[in-house]
């Protein structure tokens, strides 16, 4: 009977860890706020419970430092987990910042957040200054929930629960360095471009006036030539001597200008070039004859 009772109890005991799943948790947790220069005794300490969050809100001032001590336990045994954090969650944006607890093999862990005006005192663990808190925490209007997160390999349930609320107060004269908003690429505002107007021709009347002025210059020129005695009297002599070449030469020059006019109005280049070539050949041949006749008359002194 004793034997069987011992057997049953040992079976029960050995089966107990298998029967229920172990869960990570912590014990002997205290959060303390210490003002700078206040010494060891001036800290305000609060005990934290793994199951219920702290009722009052912990306040961290500009020159204060927050220190968290706890002992992590897996089930009933104090052990070192793989990860242990103190996580602050911004209530409005959901932004989380985690501070790593340095945990010894015995399970004892601590982390401290130091205020902005004190510097590192040479402690082994990480000391974050208030300026290491993201600026969203420094400007949070509501209390920031602080939770402990403990996780490890193995089958034990990890721990993640809120343990206290944190209020961060800044010194009034401490400037807050909010970094610039990061560069984000998004469509620009729509551009309503108004194209420059096409250039317009000038008023027709001015064009007509100037065209008339240019056209009027031509009879003036002809009149001037007539005044100078435009050698019209030579025409009969020239035509008498070599009528064909003179007529062809003069006619081919007129025809060339006519080809240019047709090119301007309707023809394209491939129609113009053969015509111009033909007229040019005629002009060359007739011109050489006509001009040699003129030369004879000039050398004879008749011009």
């Amino acid at each position, binding site marked *: 009977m004793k034997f069987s009772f011992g057997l049953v109890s040992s079976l029960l005991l050995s089966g107990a860890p298998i029967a229920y799943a172990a869960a990570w948790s912590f014990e002997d947790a205290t959060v303390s706020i210490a003002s700078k220069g206040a010494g060891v005794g001036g800290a305000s300490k609060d005990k934290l419970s793994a199951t219920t969050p702290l009722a009052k809100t912990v306040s961290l001032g500009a020159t204060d430092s927050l220190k968290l001590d706890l002992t992590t336990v897996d089930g009933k045994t104090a052990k070192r987990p793989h990860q242990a954090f103190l996580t602050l969650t911004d209530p409005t944006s959901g932004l989380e910042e985690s501070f790593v607890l340095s945990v010894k093999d015995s399970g004892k862990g601590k982390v401290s957040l130091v205020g902005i005006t004190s510097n590192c005192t040479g402690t082994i663990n990480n000391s974050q200054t208030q300026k290491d808190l993201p600026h969203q925490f420094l400007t949070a209007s509501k209390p920031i929930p602080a939770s402990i997160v403990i996780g490890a390999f193995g089958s034990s349930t990890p721990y993640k629960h809120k343990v206290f609320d944190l209020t961060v107060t800044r010194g009034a004269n401490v400037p807050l360095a909010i970094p610039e908003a990061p560069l984000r690429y998004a469509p620009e505002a729509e551009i309503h471009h108004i194209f420059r107007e096409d250039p317009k021709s000038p*008023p027709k009347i001015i064009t007509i006036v100037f065209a008339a002025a240019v056209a009027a210059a031509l009879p003036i020129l002809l009149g001037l030539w007539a005044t100078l005695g435009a050698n019209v009297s030579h025409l009969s002599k020239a035509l008498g001597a070599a009528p064909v070449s003179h007529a062809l030469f003069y006619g081919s020059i007129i025809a060339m200008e006519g080809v240019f006019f047709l090119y301007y109005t309707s023809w394209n280049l491939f129609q113009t070039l053969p015509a111009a070539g033909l007229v040019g050949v005629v*002009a060359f041949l007739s011109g050489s004859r006509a001009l040699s006749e003129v030369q004879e008359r000039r050398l004879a002194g008749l011009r």
Partner: protein
Amino acid sequence: MPPKQRTAAPQTVPGTPYSAAKPKSANDAQDILQGVWNRYVEKTTQRTKLLDSFMLFLVVVGALQFLYVVLVGNFPFNAFLSGFSACVGQFVLTASLRIQTNPENKADFESISHERAFADFVFGSLLLHFFCVNFIN
């Protein structure tokens, strides 16, 4: 436009040097100009004067086009360029014809007869007209 007077080169034409044409009252600019004009009318040959009047006509037409552009702007630009360069190019061709056919320059252009110069002038003018018509497009 009064031609440039040449003082060198013995000419068959009785081209007296410019210094002999000093008017009596040298201080009067008006008299100087009048003297230049009289000398021009007397001494230049009739054919040269025909060319000179043509060059004057080209200057007037070019000035009219330029004045038009100054007044109303140069749209379309290629039309202005075409017309203006036609005037300028024709002026240059006429000036070269004048140089080559001026009796006072006979010593410089022995090898080129007047008719050859005229033929070159016609050829150059036709080319110029073709390119200007092309450029007006």
